[in-house]
């Protein structure tokens, strides 16, 4: 399936892997942004953590930075601060974003960093052969928890709602159309956007049937955080779509830098000399 958004890299995801759904939905969303909103793919930059999810960086023919395990959300914020004119998407695994690098996820949401975070949430460390993750259910058996995980899982949606994320959504890798739509909305959202994608791992945690029987479309976001929290607590049915969105919240780069875009407006050598001379004079 080579196309103009796919590199020559050999695809090594397992056949049937939920990552294919995320990959295809994301490419569809990029094309939709190009067609409907005139946003060039040159201005859509990507970053990824480390794990099966992150191979998407090699497969997508887009610019960006293949980061470290858990640090992709920090990398993404640095990229956005450098040039607020671009759209930055961080792909992360549940181990990356909820384990190794949870601080960056929480703070990116807290400060309303204008980036999109897409979690490939399969509840398992696939690339390291099946250990439990922060979203694995209690009792999950993997090589590091042979008698079952002794921990309760995190609820990613509730976590993000509680720290003030301005766009919180859930998708399912098996529903391409709905997932495309959520990605498209997330990238268009001004401010921090979070998409938790339920994703089966066919080798170590095949949740395909379970999710297929439980997901149901959420037609539109609810209007309060409290309602969104209640939706996030549902376990019989798993709503997918945008849970909560609040617009017009100032973004972090606006609050820190105003309208300064350092790439295009950096001070010249001579301006810097002048400022330094003035400061030295004041210290005399």
């Amino acid at each position, binding site marked *: 399936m080579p196309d103009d958004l796919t590199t020559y890299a050999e695809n090594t995801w397992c056949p049937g892997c939920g990552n294919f759904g995320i990959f295809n939905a994301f490419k569809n969303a990029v094309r939709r942004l190009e067609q409907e909103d005139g946003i060039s793919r040159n201005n859509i930059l990507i970053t990824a953590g*480390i794990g099966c999810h992150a191979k998407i960086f090699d497969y997508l023919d887009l610019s960006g930075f293949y980061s470290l395990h858990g640090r992709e959300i920090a990398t993404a914020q640095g990229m956005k601060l450098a040039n607020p004119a671009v759209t930055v998407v961080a792909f992360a695994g549940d181990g990356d974003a909820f384990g190794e690098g949870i601080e960056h996820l929480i703070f990116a949401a807290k400060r309303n960093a204008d980036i999109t975070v897409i979690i490939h949430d399969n509840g398992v460390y696939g690339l390291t052969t099946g250990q439990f993750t922060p979203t694995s259910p209690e009792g999950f058996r993997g090589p590091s928890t042979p008698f079952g995980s002794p921990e309760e899982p995190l609820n990613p949606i509730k976590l993000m709602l509680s720290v003030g994320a301005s766009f919180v959504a859930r998708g399912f890798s098996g529903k391409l159309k709905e997932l495309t739509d959520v990605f498209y909305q997330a990238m268009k959202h001004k401010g921090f956007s979070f998409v938790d994608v339920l994703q089966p791992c066919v080798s170590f945690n095949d949740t395909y049937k379970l999710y297929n029987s439980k997901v149901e479309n959420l037609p539109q976001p609810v209007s309060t955080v409290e309602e969104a929290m209640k939706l996030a607590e549902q376990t019989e049915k798993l709503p997918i779509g945008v849970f909560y969105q609040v617009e017009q919240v100032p973004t972090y780069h606006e609050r820190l830098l105003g309208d300064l875009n350092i790439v295009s407006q950096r001070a010249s050598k001579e301006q*810097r000399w002048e400022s*330094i001379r003035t400061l030295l004079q004041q210290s005399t």
Partner: protein
Amino acid sequence: MEKELFTFIAGGTAGAGIRKAGAVAGYIFTRMGRRVFEMEDYQSLIKGGHNFAVVSSATYPIKSHYMKADLVVATDKRSYDMHKEHLRDGGVMVFNSDAMKDETVPNGGIGIPFTTISRKYTNSELRLGVGAITVLAVSIGMSKDELADVIRTQYRDAENNINFAMEIYDAAAPQLFGKFTLKKTDEKPLPMISGNETISLGAVAGGLDFFFSYPMTPASSILHFLAAHAKEFQIGVMHPESELAAINMALGAASMGLKTMVASSGGGMALMEEAFSLSGMAEVPVLAVLGSRPGPSTGVPTYTEQGDLRFAINQGHGEFPRVVASPYSMEEAFYLAAEMLGLVQEFQTLGILLTEKHLEESRMTVDIDPTKASWAEPIMYQGGDEKYLRYKITEDGISPLLFPPSDQVIKFTSYEHDEYGVSTEDPQIIAKMHEKRARKQETIVRKLMQMHTVNVFGHGGPVIFTYGSTTMSVLEALHCANLEATVVQPIYLEPFPTWEFEKFKNVSPIVVEQSVMGAFETLIKEKTGIKAKASIRKYDGRPFDPEELAQQIKEAI
């Protein structure tokens, strides 16, 4: 007799305005055309404890404070106890008589009821520093008007401070007025700033765009200074959630074309280490300032040491080129920060500016010309390839840069990769990329060979090897003891400028450093084969005192 060298110590609890008093004393001395070096000794606490500022000034370019003072103002008992041994012949101790009521005070001390007088004013404790400045002014024969002018320009709440100062003035003048006559010069007053300020200004002069840092003493004042002046410089300054965030954001921003810097002390640098290795692999430049405190672990936060040398040159897992350098003075720190920012851009890798609390937080008079700072320019892609290759194999190991957004796809990556930036496990490509980065190391060495990488001070006499701010202590020690020696200080420590040491291969130097295990001495031996004749090491967290060091050097000769 007019004094060429004069040292003033002010001591008191944290919160008594002692640090400010050190700065104001410096202001007074620079107004007399004198050079100043000020060292602040403070503890890791906010209130209480013991702080003191040592301000030495001279008519020549002084490079260290002296622990033997001409005038000590002890605003509490603890200061008195600590500094009564710090008076030189003819020195005067002025103590707080309110704090010493039940104590036997030896001859020669002058008691002033600082506390009683200060209690007539609000924020009485904070005014003790003003009291210390007043005593200094009296002792060097300043008039009340001159003192009032100083307070007006240097302190808030000037009216109350001036009233308070005048009461102290009257109490001190009968015994102390004009006790010391300081030699003046016609030199223009020079700015007196800290090493952290010169590092910050140097980075800005060199092209710094964005600074990311999580607070950690003694590096925090870089963050404070740059944050305060970010708007003037049109740069970004961010204090994120952790050092991990700081360095990864810095690399993300650098991948977009910004010149970025981070700073911390040992613990924070250790947290950043995985990302330093990422800088090496992804070939994304970043400059990191490592400000040493006595270690290991949390160590002693507000004191000085040079125990991080090996840590600095060995940052990051895996093999990749990097540049490590350490400035000897506040002025050199300015030019070096700019130069290193340029080197990391040119070679797309990690640079570490290694320094110590003693340089970062001491203040001295500096003569800086911003137009002489180098300006960082990366080597940019000029087109010509069918597709842009981020990791193009080149002879010198440098793959020209291009930054997003672009109509070309630009892939930076932490995995081993092909030229395009796609992950690889191919044995031939792995080897080729390793070799490309290794060639960059050789290119860096060729570049350094054209640069000024080692300072040599003086000529003749015994040879002394040292580095970092300890160099200032050595130079001042030689000056005060009137000793002739050749002092060799490598500015660059990685790649190590071995070629500059050829001419010293037959000497047996004295090695001076602030380290218990002799990290510098063993590095010199490993890199150059030169064995030390004698080692002078200090590792109690305090910088060398020039007179004590001179004695040690004499014994070593």
